């Protein structure tokens, strides 16, 4: 719709001489025109019946004519697209180039506006957007808007950050990254004009890269093996790509460069000098981007017939992946648009193997450590959409990719395996669970704790949750029966007369009937008093102390009656909340209730997870109790199963959200008080209100401190337990002269890493305590290494 409007206006324009002005309809509101301008600018470069060049030419003419009345609006829109539409970088730099050729002053004002915007984005910790802005500026050199020497000077200022002392490495990393990331676009031009300075720059960068600390790398690698594809640190990889580009004399054939077609016009333009730009100093609250490891799962030998994939150190690889990542970043919320833009962009780019590049980017993001840039389920749905819209080609390559990932499970990071399991099972559920399971029968001969059979087992378990048990039995070959999950049925201890000898059996009948007959809490508690306490020798107690059998009898019976569905169980927990709280008054009680929940629902981990969630939310158990339970000896045999870690991380998240909620309440109360104080008029009623608010703030402050203390304690418990388990294992192996790297150890140490990675923001607050109490120099170096890798992420 806009396209045709645009073409119509171009058509109208082409009928007139260069003195044509914008056909201003008297009835149009300025706001309509502004919206039209925004639309025209945003849409240029999209699918069109005219060529990109003629569209740019036309748009430049239109905007030039509008400058007298809408200059500021046009400046703002162009600054925005520079920041928010990086995948169309060269389209917009060409546009600015054409405008600058027609209106030198406008060019100057645009450059100034961009510099202002750059300062602002840096101040607001928007480092990824700042990269796009700097890249835009550097491409403006190609469009004769900015003079090359002034760009080199900006780069020199950026690289000089590497000389700063006492700053986090991630700070200087970013400035080096920005410079390197611009070179595919502008390296050629800068070298032609200022090769001596550029050589000096690159040599400085090289020196910096050599002395950089790379402790963080192992924590961020998707695979621990360097074969078949090395897992390179992102700056090292980009450096190698730039080196190769330089060797190729900066010949870069991949980036779309519309300005080449306009060279005769642009080279007549006068250029501007960038004002000297001093990088803003380091601030303590600055949040620089974390380092990354480049994800490689394909290489040029893997692409199906068609053009060859660029090698991992070819700069084209960088450009292609940047482009696709930008597209996903812009359109992640709209999967259909994402697909059509990818289609468009890659048609206008030179020869590439779209599908493998695309999968490498999508899986690269899905497996990214510490966290994917977007929510996991987005990638699943995007891949489903892609398979739906390209059923001829995509599904086969996706199957091939899945196969490759399966083959390398032995060295894949446990966190990434989790994501692989979740993705694959969800994906299968959209395609009738069709898969050639026999291709994976190699896993059947391996120990069940090995990564491949473990993966298949977890996939089948997750698949069952999205369907039902019989379905899973039906879809896998009979040979896979050992990997099929158990039927998710309740295990009732007091099932029938065969359990009559159990000490709790008689009361289980009585209490079961009482519940069915809607007895009151008091009546039920009275019945429960009859349960003998295995822990007690004499009856000096009124029976108020922790009685595990009491908990067992009541909870088993209650959950058995409510086993039909989640809702039934939640309802039961709600109805008998008082009794449960009484029974779990002590830490022992809380631990035991979790134990019972596991016992009865051990074949239905999904139910365990939702019950634990409910019990935390209704304060029947607390987060630390859950952590202690998961790490207890009783759960050791389940320790490597996915559901354990889903429960743990869900628990940590609830704790974090709880703290954030109270902090927010405190902030709001403080804001309210401030507003009151501003409005203050001396009078008793206002003072009273203020007094109330101050009291509320004091109470909230206490609440925050208490919540934070609970949060810190939770992390201490978790890390302490990890340290105990790992130390035990390491000592045992040492004394037995056995290799420490068992599947259990790999799983456990990577689970420790996972806690750091998934909650790094929160944990950072407690670094001091962690270092003083737990991660001290006396610790085994294998465990301490994980802590040091974590620290290196933001140093």
């Amino acid at each position, binding site marked *: 719709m806009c396209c045709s409007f645009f073409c119509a206006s171009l058509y109208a324009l082409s009928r007139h001489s260069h003195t044509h002005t914008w056909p201003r309809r008297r009835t149009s509101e300025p706001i309509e025109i502004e*919206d039209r301008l*925004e*639309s025209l600018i*945003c*849409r240029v470069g999209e699918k069109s019946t005219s060529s990109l060049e003629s569209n740019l030419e036309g748009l430049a003419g239109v905007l030039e004519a509008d400058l007298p009345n809408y200059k500021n*609006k046009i400046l*703002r*829109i162009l*600054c*925005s*697209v520079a*920041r*928010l*539409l990086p995948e169309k970088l060269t389209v917009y730099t060409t546009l600015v180039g054409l405008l600058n050729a027609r209106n030198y002053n406008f060019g100057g004002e645009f450059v100034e*506006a961009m510099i*202002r*915007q750059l300062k*602002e984005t840096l101040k607001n910790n928007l480092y990824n957007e700042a990269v796009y802005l700097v890249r835009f500026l550097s491409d403006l050199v190609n469009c004769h808007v900015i003079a090359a020497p002034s760009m080199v000077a900006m780069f020199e200022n950026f690289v000089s950050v590497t000389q700063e002392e006492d700053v986090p490495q991630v700070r200087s990393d970013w400035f080096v990254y920005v410079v390197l990331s611009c070179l595919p676009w502008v390296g050629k031009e800068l070298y032609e004009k200022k090769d001596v300075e550029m050589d000096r720059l690159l040599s400085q960068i090289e020196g910096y890269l050599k002395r950089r600390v790379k402790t963080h790398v192992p924590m961020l690698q998707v695979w621990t093996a360097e074969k078949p594809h090395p897992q390179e640190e992102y700056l090292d990889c980009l450096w190698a790509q730039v080196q190769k580009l330089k060797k190729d004399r900066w010949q870069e054939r991949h980036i779309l460069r519309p300005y080449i077609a306009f060279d005769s016009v642009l080279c007549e333009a006068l250029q501007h000098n960038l004002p000297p730009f001093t990088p803003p100093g380091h601030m303590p609250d600055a949040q620089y981007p974390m380092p990354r490891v480049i994800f490689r799962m394909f290489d040029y030998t893997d692409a199906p017939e068609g053009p060859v994939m660029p090698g991992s150190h070819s700069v084209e690889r960088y450009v292609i992946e940047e482009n696709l990542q930008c597209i996903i970043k*812009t359109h992640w*919320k*709209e*999967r259909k*648009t994402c697909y059509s833009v990818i289609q468009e962009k890659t048609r206008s780019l030179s020869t590439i193997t779209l599908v493998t590049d695309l999968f490498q980017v999508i899986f690269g993001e899905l497996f990214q450590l510490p966290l994917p840039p977007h*929510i*996991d*389920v*987005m990638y*699943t*749905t995007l891949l*489903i959409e892609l398979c739906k819209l390209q059923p001829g080609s995509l599904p086969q390559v996706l199957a091939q990719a899945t196969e490759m990932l399966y083959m390398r499970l032995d060295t894949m990071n446990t966190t990434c395996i989790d994501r692989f399991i*979740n993705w694959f099972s*969800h994906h299968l*559920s*959209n395609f*009738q669970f069709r898969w050639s399971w026999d291709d994976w029968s190699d896993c059947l001969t391996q120990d069940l704790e090995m990564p491949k059979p473990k993966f298949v087992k977890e996939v089948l378990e*997750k698949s069952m*949750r*999205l*369907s*039902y048990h019989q379905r899973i039995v039906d879809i896998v070959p009979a040979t896979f029966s050992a990997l099929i999950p158990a039927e998710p049925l309740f295990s009732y201890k007091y099932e029938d007369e065969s359990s009559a000898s159990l000490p709790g059996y008689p009361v289980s009948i009585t209490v079961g009937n009482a519940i069915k007959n809607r007895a009151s809490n008091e009546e039920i508690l009275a019945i429960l008093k009859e349960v003998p306490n295995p822990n007690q020798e004499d009856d000096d107690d009124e029976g108020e102390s922790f009685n595990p059998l009491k908990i067992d009898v009541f909870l088993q019976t209650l959950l058995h009656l409510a086993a039909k*569905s*989640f*809702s039934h169980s*939640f309802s039961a927990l709600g109805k008998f909340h008082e009794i449960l709280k009484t029974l779990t008054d002590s830490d022992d009680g809380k631990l035991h209730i979790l134990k019972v929940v596991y016992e009865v629902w051990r074949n239905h981990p*999904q*139910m365990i997870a*939702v019950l634990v*969630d409910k019990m935390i939310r209704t304060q029947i158990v607390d987060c630390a109790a859950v952590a202690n339970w998961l790490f207890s000896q009783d759960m050791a045999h389940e320790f490597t199963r996915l559901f354990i870690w889903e429960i743990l991380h*869900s628990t940590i*998240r609830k704790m974090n959200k709880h703290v954030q909620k109270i902090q927010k309440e405190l902030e709001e109360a403080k804001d309210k008080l401030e507003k009151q104080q501003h409005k203050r008029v001396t009078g008793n009623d206002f003072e009273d209100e203020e007094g109330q608010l101050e009291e509320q703030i004091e109470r909230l402050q206490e609440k925050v401190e208490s919540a934070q203390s609970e949060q810190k304690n939770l992390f201490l418990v978790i890390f302490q337990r990890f340290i105990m388990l790992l130390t035990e294992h390491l000592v045992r192996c040492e004394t037995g002269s056995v290799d420490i790297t068992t599947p259990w150890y790999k799983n456990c140490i990577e689970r420790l890493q996972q806690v750091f990675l998934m909650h790094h923001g929160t944990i950072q607050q407690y670094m001091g305590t962690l270092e003083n109490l737990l991660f001290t120099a006396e610790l085994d170096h294998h465990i301490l290494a994980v802590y040091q890798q974590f620290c290196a992420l933001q140093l």
Partner: protein
Amino acid sequence: MSSKLNALTSDSYTEISQYRDQHFKGNRYEQEKLLKHSNTLYVGNLSFYTTEEQVHELFAKCGDVKRIIIGLDKIKKTACGFCFVEYYTRGDAENAMRFVNGTRLDDRIIRTDWDAGFKEGRQYGRGKSGGQVRDEYRQDYDPARGGYGKLAQQHRSTEARNSF
């Protein structure tokens, strides 16, 4: 300094649809306001056999689920192919609209839509036969939703009687 670019802030999957609950107690404006702030989704085109557990597993991929209410046939009190999913935050519900809507659950493409909020009674189908209205009139055979539509079933049995 730079504008927000309305052309770019498109998030069409989270927009409210044309559907308005005819039984809603309040005016159109009030209903729309609730829809725009709701954390609750209506989920349709479920199989009658889809369980709360399956719904939970799928929708939990977008965030913590507060509760699920399975839609019931008003007379039979059995599942009749829809449910409500309530999240703790709107952001999580929005992700479900973006990434779960239009994908499969229990082999069926499901549809999600904003709901003004669960109220007692809304868990029942509003069709004359007790199920959902859509199952009253549909002509196709859907084994996961009781076979033929109710009207079509009546016609079939009438035809069967008449053919003697």
